[in-house]
């Protein structure tokens, strides 16, 4: 049972949702946007999240789109992760989200909910970081399109009342050679020790990492190390490890040292695999 009450709003347009948020805030309320709502429901139940007004974004058509045109892929933030899988439009993202939670939970967890959530994995953002995607953000001036690199730094950076409506990814990236590896301590379910998404773009390796730090990231220093032509895969991985941001997570899933050990081996595996595919 969620131990507090809230009102529930179900807007049908982006503008209606944004204005609702602000009118509620001006009235002294504490609204939150809700799409899958899994984090709001589970954290609310254990007193780690409070709201007195929920604004459900699922009824907004722009938030539910999955459309590919001649140049771009558009994915709505309120799409359940299973819908992203079933659409089969973005192979790296499909593999990435298939590793999140479990199949039934992914019927409820949404793309935007994972990217914008409090959980520190937020691994669905990795394919968008690697593809230099853009985010469509709803704000006071309507919709704006921003590079992911301007709007996502550890967390999504939104002003009060703004929300993620869609992602936009260049079609060319969708067919890039890629791999997504989620290393777990044991079994096939549960939280990962580390998740690595990788893609080759213009003969260069791009890497995104989740689960190592309290935030997902793509690091150009790490990528430079992994693309250093004079080094062996093991040496590249060793150099990349020295450029990891801080802090490294050290919790019941894995110690910091173990996370780095697993990451180094995972990076080596990825380098060897891509070199085996013909990249030197």
């Amino acid at each position: 049972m969620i131990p507090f009450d809230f009102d529930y709003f179900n807007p049908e347009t982006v503008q209606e949702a944004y204005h609702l948020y602000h009118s509620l805030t001006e009235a002294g309320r504490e609204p939150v946007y809700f799409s899958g709502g899994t984090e709001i429901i589970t954290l609310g139940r254990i007193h780690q999240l409070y709201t007195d007004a929920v604004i459900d974004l699922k009824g907004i058509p722009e938030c539910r789109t999955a459309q590919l045109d001649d140049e771009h892929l558009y994915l709505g933030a309120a799409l359940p992760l299973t819908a992203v899988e079933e659409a089969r439009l973005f192979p790296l993202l499909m593999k990435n989200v298939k590793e999140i939670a479990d199949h039934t939970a992914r019927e409820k967890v949404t793309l935007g909910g994972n990217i914008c959530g409090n959980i520190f994995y937020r691994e669905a953002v990795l394919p968008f970081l690697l593809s230099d995607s853009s985010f469509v953000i709803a704000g006071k001036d309507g919709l704006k399109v921003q590079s992911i690199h301007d709007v996502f730094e550890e967390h999504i950076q939104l002003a009060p009342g703004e929300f993620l409506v869609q992602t936009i990814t260049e079609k060319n990236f969708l067919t890039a050679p890629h791999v997504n590896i989620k290393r777990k301590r044991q079994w096939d379910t549960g939280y990962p020790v580390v998740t690595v998404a990788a893609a080759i773009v213009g003969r260069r390796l791009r890497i995104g990492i989740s689960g190592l730090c309290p935030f997902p990231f793509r690091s150009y220093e790490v990528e430079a190390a992994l693309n250093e032509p004079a080094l062996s895969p093991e040496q590249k991985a060793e150099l990349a490890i020295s450029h990891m941001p801080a802090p490294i997570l050290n919790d019941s899933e894995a110690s910091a040292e173990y996370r780095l050990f697993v990451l180094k081996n995972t990076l080596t595996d990825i380098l060897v695999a891509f070199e085996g595919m013909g990249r030197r």
Partner: protein
Amino acid sequence: MTIVSVTLMINGEERTTEIRYADILLTVLREKFGLTGSKPGCLNGDCGACTVHVNGKPMKSCLMLAIEAVGEDITTIEGLKGTPIQQAFIQHFAFQCGYCTPGFIMNCQALIQAYPDAGDKVIKEWLESNICRCTSYEEIEAAVKSVLRSEA
């Protein structure tokens, strides 16, 4: 506290009751409608004991607000009658204490409907959503495969 009257379509019938917006679907099914087949387990979306169908897809009813279910087609374990998967659970003795069984059966039924030719990989992916504390996994696998193989 805001109390609202809602009508839900459950097992093919319109059912009306009063809820808080913060009520999860599981609580409303059990406490307002007496449909106690959906079980509270972890209440955190991990165990799958509360799985129902929403528009034919498996849904952990502890992860859904009841208000979100308005206008959707909900099926609980009470709404399944004489399905092959229920018979297969009996034939293969795919339970011990039985607490997780309704959730497993709902997930299996959704899988059978969505992928009647599901292979081992898809079966495993779907059934990882549920936990059986008595570890009847091999028998559950045999039960779902017996239905899938006979319908394929």
